[in-house]
Every structure is written in structure tokens, then in C-alpha cells.
């Protein structure tokens, strides 16, 4: 079934409602228990016209520009339509009328009341009344037959009666309904309906069915029912063609029958299952409006009324032909259109659908800031030639093959009118944060500083200025003698402006309340014929865009400053600090889109244009709804689809959607009215508006805070979520850069926090990708990390046994480190440069060392010696050592990176000689990965189960392997430190729990040579009492070399396994000792897990 149920929207407060269409079907008219009659341009009309007609409205009928309502003050009133002016009282009852209805010509109104009486009144002369008495209970419903001969009424007494109007007598009566005492107790509203045109059949909802009675014989002809109906039928309506009958039930079912075939062709269910109490068929027959007892209005769209599938192909061709004809009819006929339609209803009604799409499209085009119905006339113009064309073009793409019947192109080919994209009505200029000008009580502006309200009613024409922070200024009340319609508010001033009239020029008034002299305000007249369109305030300046396509700048004290021309009519402006943001019409938009351009100017000392009139991106078929800056000064805009976009200064001033307020709306017709955007903390401050785009001034609306949410893909998955979070954090972090570059103070704590958050997120994503075995992705992520975090990533990778990844990362880290160093070099003083040069020279040496090592098999002592040598060689004056200590950790990181390079080389070379080295390096990696966990990786650890099984091992290995790492690293200055100082001071630093760099250093010298040196230091010193520490080492090295290979190996073993507990206990921590031992065990166990099983085998052999 091609029928589409549109979402319900809020129409009235809860209670009984009724609905009808106007004669042309342009408007939906509803009434409700709130006493209002509302005129909706379409279902999406955000600003329906409201006419208050009484306390409660029970029924509404509309014909020939007369709106008849049954009101709770026991009268039936007439209002003019669409103006809504009262046009007298048609008739009165002793209690309220329950149902009013027109006859087909609109000359008479029938009304049934709770005082058991039915009245028929001539519309033009209300004195001509006919009263029908005979019911014994309140009247539920009345219906006039098309020939004006009979009237049918249903009543709570359980009867449906047909009256002859002329004679005012009962013609027929059926006791078919359930009796009840009052309308409120009645099971069903029992709305009767005569078949249009012929009036041959009278439809009566009886219980779960609809019964049809014949007019001539007054006999029951047929019964329409459906299995879906479980509750009483409330309302029935005939299609304008008289071929179909629609019914709404208490249970919220909506059904349409083909009466002749007695086939139910359409079954729909109210989205919440509320009682349907009002239904109306659009004059064209393509849609049905219905209302429920909760005050909601709904629409069934595309009620194609085609008979079910019987001969779809035949029908579609027929329909096409008919449609073509229809289109031409549209072209040349105006009022006859409907008549024709009815006349050839059989084939015509199905194809009317595309033509009647107009309401939706109209609405999309219409900005809500003004009165939509007064503008956009090019579309809902009465001129059918225009109408048909535009509507067709807009309507067809949306239909998108919802029914096979419409060939989109066929009829269009022969059409003589223009059928390209239709231009959009350019949206009007507006002030961000204001409600429509036509309202009597409105917000002229609501921003982060305060609220300016305008009152324009009978007694008062005034402006209230109120500040959120009373410390800025106390509230002000001004009489609005000039009739200001625009306002802006800043910490310094209130800027007001009005458009010019015939006599008076357009004026700008500024209340500069922060002024220190006595004259707090100034007024400027614009040249004749030039009107203010938009205005804004910045810090120390005011800007006004005028109808002469100009922007005028003023100082806050009233000095005229620069003026410049705009390429198009201004839409709105916003100011913040020294920035001025202007949005204007860049050209004509088509098919509902606006073509807006944006300029961002930097005023103040650095005058320049930041954005040079580039197009402002908006959602499809939407218009700009808000423009402004975040509290931190980033331009931001919001379109009518609720999409919030923020300028991304780091990506070439592009606009990034950061939030869609419509996602948070409960209902389709709800909106959020934005009053402020904050980047730190991330808050979108807005006012939820139920059933409208903007809030009323009373009751005072409350501000709600929405979170931002970038529309990233797959945000339900962990990956998508983290990506969204990361980029959101990046985007909302941009303002720090901007603020500091333009010389403002920044919240450095917030900045570092944001940076930390980003790196943490990257690390989490990295861990996740690792888990998913996406190593390439890991590297990509690592590229986004700062290089200190990359080292964490390396540790993570190596611990989760991803050697290839770790290797790549180490290359990356090196690159990053170099980059970092280059940057540093540019900034840092020469002493530091020397240090870093030192570092790089050391790197080279390490590699040398590695190569040499390959030659000399598993010769640790040898290596150690070389290290020591290198350290002495590269040793700097003593002041250098102290300098090193204060070098940032990042520099050390670089040192730590190098081993990976080495390891990579070692691993790739298949010679067995290279392997011991590799083992070392691998160990050291696993080791070091232990260390970061308490620092930054706690969360990561929790997330990645991969880490858990490994946890015990690294602990035991930590220290033992760190030594080797230091060894492999060769001669770092750290090593030098450690070799000398750490030896002496060992116990203390080893005990300090945090894994600081110092700690690492202190544990390094646990090598064979070191142990040997410890033992032999005394003898060296006794031999050469005047030796300094350095010399001791040199001498020691010399002596160590002279030892036999076996002895040296012994020492190495000792260093590894620490087979000399006595000594160690004296000098070192017991804990360390244990760890060493357990390391042996764990190393054996774990190594097979390692990438190279060979290595472990080697380890066994060695021991």
C-alpha cells in the first residue's frame, strides 16, 4: 500500500479535537479542548496560526471562508477564514453543541447539542433556523445530505435518525447504537457521513463496523468491517469522490474501504494507539488528516485510493494518461480543478498524489523567523501553472518510487513551462537568538550575556534587558518609542535598531552602559532609504549591515569607522572580541537550498579578512537558524535542520558538524533553540521547545545543556566512539591555539588536560587495533601520537608480541624524535644542542657496537667493555652530566628507541651471533612496557585482556633485563652516571618504587663487568689511590680484559643469574635479587612464546 503515515505532531492540549481541511486543501484546520482553532499550512508548520474562539472547542467546520465552531459557552460561532476574526454567533443552545457541519454548498450549518436538539441554520441569516426535536439524549453527530433534503443525526439514546429538513420530521430511525447518558460516556462519537454528490449512502459507525444505509429505501445495504478493528469505530468520512470510506477507531486504527468492492484497502494504526476523534479527507483525496484525543495531529499521505493490485499495469497506464490530462487541467483551470477531479474520480484520484505534495515542500522552504505564509508566494501561489510545475519537480524525487504508478518524466516532457530547479526564496535577515518579529512578546536576543525581551501589545511597547550575570549590569526597562525590532547585547552595551518608515529614517541606538561618562547612549540615523538589516556588537565596536548592502562599523562610543560593501544582502552578523562574522546571500539557491556566503573579519590591531566570502555549508533544504561564536571565539552556525557546525581553523577554515539537535528531540515537531555554545567545557546551551522552533517568553524557558556529538560512522562500536571522542576533543581544542596566537590568555590546565585526553584516546585506539590485529592501522594511529606516547605504544606492541609492529613504530618514533629535536634545536640554547648531538653520535656507536658484537659471539663482557669505553670516550665535562639530568625525558626516550633499531637489525641478520643481542633487546622491551602501565596505561590495561596473562612476567624481568638494555644501549651518559654513582648509592634508588629514569639508571650496571668491578674496585683503588672514578673504570676495564674468556663468562653468568647472593645482599636489594632469580625461571618459560624460539633455545644452552 503506498499510503504513508506521517509522524504525529503536537497540535492541542490533551482532550477532544476535531479537524477539517479548507476548501482548496491548502490548510489543515484543527480545534481542541484548549479553545484554539489552529490553521496549519502543513503538518510541519511550526508556526500555525492560532485563533482563540472560546474555552473549549468541540467541533469545527469550514466552508467558503466561514469557520464554524461549537464552543463550550453553548454557542455556535462563526469566524472568518483565514483571518480568524469573529463574525457573530450563529446559534445558541442551552448547553454546548457537540457537532457542527456544513451542507455541501456551505449555505447551511447543522448543529447537534447536548440538550437533545438539532438545529439547522442558514449561514447568511442566522434567524432562519430549523429545530429538530425528538432525540431523548445528547446529540452525538449530525450530517446533512448533499441534496439538502435530509439530515441524519446520532444520539446517546442509541438511535440514528434521519429527518426531513423541510417538514422537520423523522423519516427513519434505527436503534443500533449503545445507549449512554452523556457524550462523555458514549462509547463512540458516531460521526455520520453521507456519500458525497449522490448522497446515496449514509455511513454509520456501529460498534466495530461501519453500516451503510440506502437513502431511497432507508434500509441497511451493507456492512464494512475488518479484523483489525478491535475497538469501536469513532469517525467515518467519505473520500471526496465518494468511492472510498475512511474510518477511525477508539483503538487508533485508521482504515479505508473501497465501498463498492467492500474491500479494506488501507490499514494504518495510530502511532501511539490513541483514540482517533477527528478525521478529514483532503479535497483532492490524496491525504487524510486525523486528530486524536491527546491533541495530536497526524496525516496519512498518499492515500492513493487505488483498488488493490487487481490490474496494476492496466491501471498505471490509464493513470498516466489521466495524469497527463490532469496536468493540463491544472494548467488551464483553476477553480474547476477540484470539480473535474471529482467528476473523473475513478481514474483520477490515484494520480493526484504527486500534484498534492505541495504542503511539505512549501514548509521546507520557509524560514520560521518570519511568517511563512506571507512569503514564499511563488510556491503556494494560486497560479496553477507555476504551482504544478514546481510541485511536481519537488515532489517527485521524494516519492522515489513509492508507487509504480507515477512516471516521473512522462508528462513533464510535453509541458511547456520551465521545469528546471526552482529558485528558493532567500531567507530574511535575522538576529541570532531572537524569536519572530510578529510576536507581541518576543525575545529580541538571548545570548550568553543576557536576554533582551520586546513587548509590543496594547498597553506597552517596551524593551526589557536582563543580564544573566547581575554583576555586569542591573536589569533595564526601556520604553520602545522608536519601535526597535533588532537588538544585540554585550558586556559593554545594548545595541538596538529599527527599520525606517516613510517619515523616519532607520535608527541605531546604543546604550553604552559601561561608559564612564554621563552620556550613556547615542543614536545614529541611517541615510534615507537605507534600513538596518542586521547588527552585532563586539569588543569596543558595533557593526550594522544595511539594506544598501553595506556594513557600517562604529566604535562603541559612537564614532563612525570603516564602511564596506557586501556582495549580497546580509542574513545575519555576529561579533566576538575583535572578530566579525557576516553571512549574506551569495546568490539564489535552488530547490529549497539557500546560497549563503560567509565572511570573517579580524578587526582591532591585526585587521584582515580571515574568510573571504566562502559558501556557508547548510543541510539540504534548510536555512540558517543561528549564527555566532562559541564563548571561546570559534565561529559556529546552526541550520534549520538543527545541525550545529563549527569552524575548524586547523583544516583550512572548514565547517565541521558537531551536533544535531534534532537527534535529541523527542518528537518531530520539537526543536532546540540555541542560546550559546561553549567549547570548554563542551556545552551546547539551548532551550527545548515543544512543538515549535522557538520558546515563548512566558513561562520563562529553562536552559538545557546538550552534549556535542560528531556524526562519525559506527559510533555504536568502541572504535567509532573513540574516534568520535578523539576528533571532538581535537576540534574543541583548536580554540587554544587560536586564542594564544591572538594573544589571549588561555586555560593552560584545560589545554594540557585536553591533550592528555587525546593521547589517551589514541593509545586506547591503538590497543584496540592491536587486539584486532590491525597493525597497519596501529602505525597510522601512532603517527598521530606525540612521540612520547609512541614509546608507550612500542612497549605495548612489543609486549603483545608484535615485533614487526614494534619495529615500525620505533622507526616512526625515531622520525618523530628527530623532528622534535629539530624543533627543539631551533629553540633551545647551544648547550643543549651539544647534548643532542652527543646523543646522535652515541646512536651511531651503538650500532657499531652491535656489529662488532656479531663478530664476537655472546661476549657480554666484551660488549660491556666497549660500552664502557664508549662512555668514557663520549664523556663530557662533569657539568654535562648534571645537564643531562635535567634534559627532558623525551630525549631519553630517543635513547631508548635506538635499541629497537638494533634489534631489528639483529633479528634480520640470521647469523646466530646476532641472536643474543636480540634477546636482550626483546627483553628490554617487555621490561620497559611494564613501567608505563602505572603512568599512563592503566585504562589501557583494563581494556586489553592481552596484557593480563603477561603481567607477572615483566615484573620479574624488569630489573634484570633493564641492565641488559642499558648494556645494549651502550654508552649513554646515563650509563656513565649509573656506573659510577649508582654503584655506590645503589640500595637507596633501587628501593624507590616509581619507575623514574633515575631508577632505571641505577639498576643498569648489573653486568658481568660491573660485578667484577665491584669486587675489584678496592684492589684498583689500593693500587692507585689517586684514581678518580673514571680512571677506576678505565683501569678496571683494562684488567677485566686480561681475564680469561672463561672467567669473563663466569662474571656474565653471575650478572645474569646473580649466583653470588652474599655479595649482592650486602650491596643490593633483596628484592632485586629475587627478581633476578625468578627472571631466570620466567625467562625460560616465557621465551618459547617469543617470536623466535631459537632465542630461548640459545638461552638454555648458555646456561
Amino acid at each position, binding site marked *: 500500500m503506498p499510503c504513508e503515515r506521517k509522524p504525529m505532531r503536537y497540535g492541542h492540549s490533551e482532550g477532544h479535537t476535531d479537524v477539517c481541511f479548507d476548501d482548496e486543501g491548502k490548510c489543515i484546520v484543527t480545534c481542541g479542548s484548549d479553545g484554539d482553532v489552529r490553521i496549519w499550512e502543513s503538518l510541519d508548520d511550526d508556526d500555525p496560526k492560532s485563533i482563540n474562539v472560546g474555552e473549549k472547542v468541540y467541533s469545527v467546520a469550514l466552508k467558503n471562508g466561514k469557520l464554524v465552531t461549537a464552543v463550550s459557552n453553548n454557542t455556535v460561532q462563526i469566524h472568518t477564514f483565514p483571518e480568524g476574526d469573529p463574525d457573530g454567533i450563529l446559534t445558541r443552545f442551552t448547553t454546548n453543541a457537540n457537532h457542527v457541519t456544513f451542507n455541501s454548498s456551505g449555505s447551511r450549518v447543522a448543529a447537534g447539542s447536548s440538550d437533545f436538539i438539532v438545529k439547522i441554520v442558514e449561514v447568511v441569516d442566522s434567524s432562519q433556523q430549523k429545530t429538530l426535536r425528538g432525540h431523548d439524549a445528547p446529540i452525538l453527530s449530525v450530517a446533512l445530505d448533499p441534496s439538502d433534503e435530509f439530515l441524519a443525526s446520532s444520539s446517546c439514546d442509541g438511535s440514528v435518525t434521519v429527518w426531513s429538513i423541510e417538514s422537520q420530521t423523522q423519516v427513519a430511525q434505527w436503534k443500533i447504537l449503545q445507549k449512554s447518558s452523556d457524550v462523555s460516556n458514549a462509547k463512540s462519537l458516531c460521526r455520520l457521513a453521507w456519500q458525497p454528490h449522490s448522497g446515496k449512502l449514509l455511513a454509520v459507525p456501529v460498534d466495530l463496523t461501519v453500516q451503510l444505509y440506502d437513502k431511497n429505501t432507508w434500509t441497511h445495504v451493507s456492512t464494512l468491517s475488518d479484523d483489525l478493528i478491535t475497538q469501536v469505530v469513532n469517525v467515518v468520512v467519505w473520500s471526496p469522490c465518494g468511492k472510498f470510506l475512511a474510518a477511525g477507531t477508539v483503538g487508533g486504527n485508521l482504515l479505508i474501504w473501497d465501498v463498492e468492492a467492500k474491500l479494506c484497502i488501507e490499514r494504518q494504526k495510530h502511532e501511539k494507539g490513541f483514540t482517533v476523534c477527528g478525521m478529514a479527507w483532503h479535497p483532492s483525496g490524496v491525504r487524510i488528516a486525523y486528530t486524536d484525543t491527546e491533541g495530536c495531529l497526524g496525516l496519512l499521505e498518499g492515500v492513493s485510493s487505488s483498488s488493490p493490485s487487481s490490474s496494476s499495469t492496466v491501471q498505471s497506464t490509464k493513470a498516466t494518461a489521466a495524469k497527463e490530462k490532469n496536468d493540463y487541467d491544472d494548467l488551464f483551470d483553476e477553480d474547476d480543478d477540484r470539480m473535474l477531479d471529482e467528476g473523473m474520480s475513478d481514474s483520477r484520484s490515484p494520480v493526484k498524489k504527486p500534484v498534492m505534495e505541495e504542503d511539505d515542500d512549501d514548509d521546507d522552504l520557509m524560514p520560521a523567523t518570519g511568517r511563512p505564509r506571507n512569503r514564499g508566494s511563488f510556491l503556494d501561489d494560486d497560479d496553477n501553472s507555476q504551482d504544478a510545475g514546481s510541485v511536481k519537480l519537488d515532489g517527485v524525487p521524494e516519492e522515489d518510487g513509492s508507487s509504480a504508478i507515477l512516471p516521473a518524466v512522462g508528462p513533464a516532457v510535453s509541458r511547456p513551462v520551465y521545469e528546471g530547479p526552482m529558485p528558493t526564496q532567500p531567507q530574511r535577515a535575522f538576529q541570532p537568538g531572537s524569536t519572530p518579529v510578529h510576536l507581541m512578546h518576543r525575545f529580541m536576543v538571548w545570548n*550568553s550575556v*543576557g536576554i533582551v525581551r520586546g513587548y509590543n501589545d496594547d498597553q506597552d511597547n517596551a524593551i526589557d534587558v536582563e*543580564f*544573566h*550575570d*547581575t*554583576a555586569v549590569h542591573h536589569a533595564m526597562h526601556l520604553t520602545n518609542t522608536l519601535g526597535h525590532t533588532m537588538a544585540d547585547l554585550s558586556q559593554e552595551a545594548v545595541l538596538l535598531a529599527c527599520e525606517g518608515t516613510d517619515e523616519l529614517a532607520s535608527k541605531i541606538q546604543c546604550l553604552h552602559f559601561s561608559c564612564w561618562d554621563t552620556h550613556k547612549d547615542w543614536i545614529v540615523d541611517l541615510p534615507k532609504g537605507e534600513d538596518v538589516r542586521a547588527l552585532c556588537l563586539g569588543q569596543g565596536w558595533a557593526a550594522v549591515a544595511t539594506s544598501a548592502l553595506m556594513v557600517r562599523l562604529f566604535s562603541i562610543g559612537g564614532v563612525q569607522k570603516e564602511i564596506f560593501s557586501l556582495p549580497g544582502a546580509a542574513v545575519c552578523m555576529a561579533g566576538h572580541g575583535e572578530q566579525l562574522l557576516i553571512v549574506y546571500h551569495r546568490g539564489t539557491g535552488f530547490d529549497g537550498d539557500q546560497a549563503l556566503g560567509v565572511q570573517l573579519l579580524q578587526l582591532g590591531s591585526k585587521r584582515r579578512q580571515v574568510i573571504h566570502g566562502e559558501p556557508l555549508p547548510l543541510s539540504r533544504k534548510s536555512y540558517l537558524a543561528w549564527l555566532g561564536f562559541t564563548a571561546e571565539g570559534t565561529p559556529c552556525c546552526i541550520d534549520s535542520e538543527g545541525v550545529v557546525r563549527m569552524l575548524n581553523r586547523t583544516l583550512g577554515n572548514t565547517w565541521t558538524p558537531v551536533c544535531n539537535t534534532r537527534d535529541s528531540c523527542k518528537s518531530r515537531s520539537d526543536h532546540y533553540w540555541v542560546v550559546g555554545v561553549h567549547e570548554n567545557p563542551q556545552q551546547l*546551551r539551548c532551550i527545548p521547545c515543544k512543538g515549535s522552533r522557538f520558546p515563548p517568553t512566558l*513561562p*520563562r524557558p*529553562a*536552559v*538545557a*545543556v546538550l552534549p556535542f556529538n560528531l556524526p562519525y560512522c559506527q559510533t555504536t562500536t568502541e572504535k567509532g566512539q573513540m574516534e568520535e571522542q578523539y576528533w571532538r576533543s581535537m576540534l574543541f581544542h583548536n580554540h587554544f591555539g587560536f586564542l594564544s596566537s591572538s594573544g589571549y590568555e588561555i586555560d593552560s590546565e584545560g589545554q594540557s588536560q585536553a591533550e592528555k585526553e587525546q593521547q589517551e584516546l589514541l593509545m586506547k585506539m591503538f590497543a584496540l587495533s592491536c587486539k584486532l590485529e590491525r597493525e597497519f592501522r596501529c602505525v597510522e594511529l601512532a603517527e598521530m601520537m606525540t612521540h612520547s606516547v609512541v614509546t608507550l605504544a612500542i612497549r605495548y606492541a612489543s609486549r603483545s608480541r608484535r615485533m614487526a609492529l614494534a619495529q615500525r613504530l620505533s622507526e616512526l618514533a625515531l622520525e618523530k624524535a628527530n623532528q622534535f629535536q629539530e624543533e627543539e634545536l631551533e629553540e633551545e640554547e647551544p648547550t643543549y644542542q651539544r647534548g643532542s648531538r652527543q646523543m646522535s653520535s652515541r646512536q651511531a656507536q651503538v650500532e657499531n657496537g652491535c656489529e662488532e658484537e656479531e663478530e664476537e659471539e655472546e661476549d657480554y663482557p666484551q660488549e660491556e667493555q666497549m660500552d664502557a669505553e664508549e662512555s668514557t670516550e663520549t664523556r663530557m665535562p662533569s657539568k654535562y652530566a648534571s645537564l643531562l639530568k635535567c634534559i627532558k625525558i623525551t630525549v631519553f626516550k630517543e635513547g631508548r628507541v635506538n635499541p629497537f633499531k638494533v634489534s631489528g637489525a639483529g633479528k634480520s641478520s640470521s647469523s646466530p651471533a646476532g641472536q643474543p643481542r636480540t634477546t636482550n633487546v626483546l627483553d628490554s622491551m617487555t621490561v620497559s612496557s611494564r613501567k608505563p602501565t602505572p603512568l599512563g596505561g592503566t585504562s589501557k590495561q583494563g581494556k586489553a585482556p592481552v596484557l593480563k596473562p603477561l603481567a607477572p612476567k615483566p615484573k620479574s624481568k624488569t630489573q634484570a633485563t633493564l641492565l641488559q638494555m642499558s648494556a645494549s644501549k651502550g654508552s649513554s651518559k646515563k650509563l656513565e652516571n649509573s656506573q659510577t654513582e649508582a654503584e655506590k648509592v645503589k640500595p637507596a634508588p633501587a628501593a624507590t618504587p616509581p619507575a623514574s629514569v633515575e631508577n632505571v639508571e641505577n639498576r643498569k650496571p648489573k653486568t658481568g663487568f660491573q660485578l667484577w668491578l665491584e669486587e675489584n674496585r678496592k684492589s684498583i683503588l689500593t693500587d692507585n689511590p689517586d684514581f678518580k672514578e673514571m680512571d677506576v673504570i678505565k683501569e678496571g676495564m683494562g684488567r677485566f680484559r686480561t681475564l680469561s674468556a672463561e672467567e669473563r663468562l663466569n662474571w656474565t653468568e653471575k650478572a645474569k643469574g646473580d649466583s653470588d647472593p652474599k655479595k649482592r645482599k650486602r650491596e643490593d636489594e633483596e628484592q632485586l635479587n629475587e627478581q633476578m632469580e625468578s627472571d631466570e625461571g620466567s625467562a625460560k618459560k616465557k621465551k618459547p612464546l617469543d617470536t623466535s624460539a631459537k632465542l630461548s633455545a640459545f638461552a638454555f644452552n648458555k646456561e
Partner: protein
Amino acid sequence: MDPAEVEFLAEKEMVKIIPNFSLDKIYLIGGDLGPFNPGLPVEVPVWLALNLKQRQKCRIVPPEWMDTDKLEEIREQERKLDTFTPIPSLYYMELTKLLLNHSADNIPKADEIRTLVKDIWDTRVAKLRLSADSFISQQEAHAQLDNLTLMEINTTRSFLLDSLNYMYKLRSNLQPGRSQDY
């Protein structure tokens, strides 16, 4: 416990205010409050809200249940049922009184709300009296009353306990064995 004490306890309830000043988070023993941003709703205890209100530093946002429609519904419910209905706030009476006395200008339809809450209160207290009456007249040993608020319990406690004591004394005097003591 006198009503003032109950009111004191009620002042710990949280209520939303819209401050018109700006202040960082304040750290109190009972928890952190704020930060206060002008124009942005923030939850604070009633005592602070009233204090700020008296100094004209904020507007109080009435609690959700302080709305004529909701209260009317509760009143109807309360009248319909014989037992006590659950009340939206355990301190509805105290809060209504406090908020309406100090910030009636921030609460729409303050007078109606006052009447409605009073109606609810009266209905409930009448029920309470009725149940106390039947409790005594039927000489029950115990009774269970759900959904009573502290204030309601407080209104009847002293009276009920005292009268029960007296009745106990009187009854025990009636017993022949005891009468000789006097």
C-alpha cells in the same frame, strides 16, 4: 522532633536554581556544589537556594512535581484511595512552604499550588486521623501505614503516643487486680 527540625531536614533536598552570578565550584562537607554559571541551571540544596534567593542572586526553578496539573492528579488520587498514595517528594509540604514563601515570583501559579498542596495535606492528615481512630477503637496491637512523610508522622506522633499511654493507664486501672494498688 518539632516541625522546625523536619523543615531543617527538608532543606537538604536538592533544587535547581538559575544563578545570576558566576562562581567556581565550592567544596562543602556535604559535597561539591557548582560551578555556578550565570543563566545556567545548577542543582543546590534548598538552604542555599533560599539564601541565594533572598540575596537576589538566583531564580529558583520549581521542582517538577510543583505543577498544578500534576498536583491536581495527585489530589484526585489521594481522594479516591483509602490508603496513602506515594507522594512525589518526601518533603512536599515543607518544600512547598519554603519555596512559596521565599520565591513565589519564580513559581507559576503559586497560589493554586499552595491550595492544592494544602488540600493534599488535609486529605492525608484526615486519613491519618481516621486510621488512628480505627486503630484505637478496634484495639489493634499494630498497624502499617505506607507512604507517610516525616512531617505527617510528626504531626500525629506526640498526640497518638500520649493518648495511647493514657489509655493504657486507664485500662490497666480498670483491671480488678490492679485496682487495689491505689
